[in-house]
């Protein structure tokens, strides 16, 4: 039987459909049941729709004010929770005057009992006007519905419309109260639709080139986007709009002018790529930049689309020269290590194969909080026979998987990390990363390095007091800390030097 009722789920047998062990001869549509209501009290790791829209989609936009229409909690929790840095540069060449504005401020209406009884519209209006006064430099104001607002029925769209005229600045309302949908995923969807309907097609870019792309579903976690941006620009491709890492409000408004959309996080942002294709005829491709293999393949695909094949090859070649030897080191160290990937969604299929093929690891379990069918199909395609695939695993299942599948390392979120450690298994943050970026060639090295340093952290061989310790001290391999220096450094320096001298040669 491919579907598995875990021991800890005996009392909630409905979980059986959500846990699937890959069996190669199974029909294609055998995947975990997903995107359905959460089992109450199961200790799920899921979040709410508000987290999906503000925490994922819009929170990365650098020049807008975020006003959360909520009792104080949602506003507090929306503050600085995700690591998406921004640069002050705006598309018109100016600089936004407040650095990291998106990480620095969150605003809220602090709804009280009387607002719940009489409605919160007045307070919302007033708050948005005050927000506008407080930060006149902001280029738009985004405001968010929450559970309370969804239940008392404030018409936020009407307020947004009125105030857009009154203030002469775009006000956009996002209607994703926390309770809507089974998980964060619903909030992603609402975020996509709202931005598309309100913004896309409303402005024209200052200039265009034949190589303009939208990079969609890339949120610049720990600087991921900047890594990819560099590769694309080195190839001669222009990032006309980002959705939404290091992105400005205006960029969303002219997404319809791109020649091609690249969809990176395919769970949270394929929606807008679809809508733009349908309405404006801009085609899109799904891309994957995790690992050297996927990154190379996808840069080649993009290169081919624009007739920039050689430029793509050059980027790949240069990068591989730098990261190749380092990855070789990590491959030796990580060979055979068992890994359990529990991501929000797509990273479970982005990383499963690269960890195996490029680093010699074994993906023994994959899981996701809010992935849908298409994602689970990919997840299933990219794991080996016998790998367990879980939808929305809860903490008891998490414990059982650790016990039964004995991973050497877990990639998961901060809510799971410390539980894993208590059970004696190292865990790396995969939503917001440890020492990212993790994307692209150098990002994959960062990931490998973090995995290495967590697995080989000497502490794991000293967990318990020993009455009679081994004479030579701890048995496990002592970390080779020198991996960044000496040989490797010389190696990459000589490559850099080669590059420089080559460039000089070209100029001459």
């Amino acid at each position, binding site marked *: 039987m491919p579907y598995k009722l875990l021991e800890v789920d005996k009392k909630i047998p409905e979980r059986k459909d959500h846990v699937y062990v890959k069996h190669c001869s199974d029909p294609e549509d055998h995947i975990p049941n997903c995107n359905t209501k959460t089992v109450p*009290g199961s200790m799920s790791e899921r979040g709410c729709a508000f987290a999906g829209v503000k925490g994922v989609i819009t929170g990365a936009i650098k020049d807008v004010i975020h006003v959360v229409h909520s009792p104080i909690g949602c506003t507090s929790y929306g503050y600085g929770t995700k690591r998406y840095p921004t640069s002050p540069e705006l598309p018109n060449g100016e600089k936004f005057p407040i650095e990291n504005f998106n990480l620095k401020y969150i605003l809220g209406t602090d709804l009280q009992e009387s607002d719940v009884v009489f409605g919160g519209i007045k307070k919302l209006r007033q708050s948005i006007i005050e927000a506008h006064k407080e930060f006149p430099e902001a280029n738009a104001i985004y405001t968010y519905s929450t559970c309370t607002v969804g239940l008392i029925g404030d018409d936020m769209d009407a307020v947004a419309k009125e105030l857009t005229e009154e203030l002469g600045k775009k006000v956009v309302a996002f209607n994703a109260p926390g309770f809507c949908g089974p998980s964060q995923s619903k909030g992603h969807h609402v975020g996509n639709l709202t931005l598309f309907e309100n913004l896309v097609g409303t402005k024209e870019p200052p200039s265009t080139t034949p190589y303009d792309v939208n990079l969609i579903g890339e949120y610049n976690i720990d600087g991921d986007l900047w890594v990819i941006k560099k590769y694309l620009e080195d190839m001669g491709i222009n990032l006309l709009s980002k959705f939404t890492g290091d992105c400005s409000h205006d960029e969303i408004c002219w997404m319809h002018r791109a020649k091609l959309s690249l969809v990176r996080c395919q769970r949270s942002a394929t929606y807008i790529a679809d809508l733009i294709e349908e309405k404006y005829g801009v085609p899109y491709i799904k891309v994957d930049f995790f690992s050297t293999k996927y990154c190379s393949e996808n840069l080649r695909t993009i290169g081919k689309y624009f007739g920039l094949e050689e430029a793509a090859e050059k980027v790949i070649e240069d990068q591989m020269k730098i990261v190749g030897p380092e990855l070789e080191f990590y491959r030796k160290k990580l060979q055979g290590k068992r890994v359990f990937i529990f991501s929000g969604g797509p990273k479970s299929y982005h990383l499963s194969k690269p960890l195996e093929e490029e680093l010699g690891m074994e993906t023994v379990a994959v899981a996701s909080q809010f992935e849908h069918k298409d994602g689970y199909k990919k997840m299933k395609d990219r794991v080996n026979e016998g790998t367990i695939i879980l939808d929305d695993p809860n903490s008891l299942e998490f414990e059982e998987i650790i016990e039964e599948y004995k991973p050497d390392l877990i990639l998961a979120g901060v809510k799971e990390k410390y539980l894993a450690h208590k059970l004696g298994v190292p865990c790396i943050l995969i939503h917001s990363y440890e020492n990212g970026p993790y994307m692209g060639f150098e990002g994959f090295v960062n990931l490998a390095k973090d995995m290495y340093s967590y697995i080989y952290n000497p502490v794991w061989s000293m967990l318990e007091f020993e009455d009679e310790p081994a004479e030579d001290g701890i048995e496990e391999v002592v970390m080779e800390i020198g991996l960044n220096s000496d040989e490797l450094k010389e190696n990459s320096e000589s490559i850099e030097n080669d590059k420089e001298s080559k460039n000089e040669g070209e100029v001459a």
Partner: protein
Amino acid sequence: MSCVNIIEKERNVVINPLKTCQPFGAMFAVTGINKGFPIVHGSQGCSAFVRYGFARHFREPSEIAVTSLHEDAAVFGGRKNLVAGIENLALRFKPDIIGVITTCSSEIIGDDVYGFTETARENIKKKMGEDSHEIEVIPISTPSFVETHYKGYDTAIKSIVNHLARKDEPNEKVNIIPGIVNPGDIRELKHLMNMMKLEGIFLTDISDPFDAPLRPSKVTKPFYPKGGVSVDEIKDSANSLGTVSICKYAGSGALSLEKEHKVPAAVDSPPVGLQNTDKFIRNLKKFTGNEIPNEILDERGILVDSMADNAARYLFGRKVIIYGDPDITTGIARFVGELGMEPTMVCTGVKSPSFAQDMEKIAKETGSEIDVMVGQDLRAVEVYLKENPVDLMIGNSDGRLISLDQGIPLIRVGFPVYDRVGYQRQPIVGYRGGLYLMDLITNTILEKYYEPTHWKLQQ
């Protein structure tokens, strides 16, 4: 001239809050019970965000269940979710106690949480038989749109005590309501009480649950951290010699024990600094009649020694602003005054008249003029600092960017601290906590305001 100058909030919108909603405080309180499990009756974000916050600050697992309200519950009510949620939690995790915490959504929908909890209790009894008697299920009403996290904490402690405390043989213990503090603080209080030859009942005790040892050989299935106050201890709190709440904003549990079970209550500011710790020790003595041993007075003496040696030289007249939870800021403001520094502005996100009164007292003691912001936010602090520069900021990590922008060093205290490690383990209460905080302040001043090569640092 000594006075306080109340600075009112000038806008309606909150920018970078210094408070959060009620359920947070209740989740914190229930986590401090041995095998205690909070279940939040609301949307998933209500638990996920708080778990995230706890994990980030304490670097510990934080297991908080949720009834996962979706649209259908918003329309038809959350009965099914709550009853099934409590049952699933009880059957699978077998906790000793479940705190059922309401939110904005469940309160607006109007769910009869008390009735639903009763149904769940009956169902559990049917399914678990005898085992079910050991599971206490306690409803805690914490609508998010009323007051703040402190109210939620207060309500939770009161609900737990009211539900469990039973009059029996008198014990020789003192109940402590610690407020929203760190594991290091609770351990320091225990240390003081140990020296007084006194056992405490902590209502509740997050010291071990939020700072648990990593010892795989001791791991239980399901995972519960060691420690926390036990249900039996809470029951026994009705028989204690007294209750000291070291949190002025969470005294109702203490008052309720006084009213219902004649356990005398003392509700005071937290023992931060010399005088507040003295007061705490006096309270313990008052309830127990136990002598104050020399070890405690020696600890006090070490703090006094350090104040005598260093405060006048390095700290005197330095201007400080303090922001955060009302009880901790009150305590720190008083201590900073004891060190000869000037608490020029104190800000809390909680609206409370007694906060301003406390500050008035401190202003009189220190002979200084204190700007007091009540019910304000971090943006107000930022704007204030632009006009009124100071030497030092004391508050949580959320002020780190203000500190960076304005070049004012930040002493991290309170919740949350996520950009440094170990702060949750260091006490700021008691004489040793005072010493730690004072050293931290002094060294920060030395680092920032003294030239490293200057002869002033030579001896």
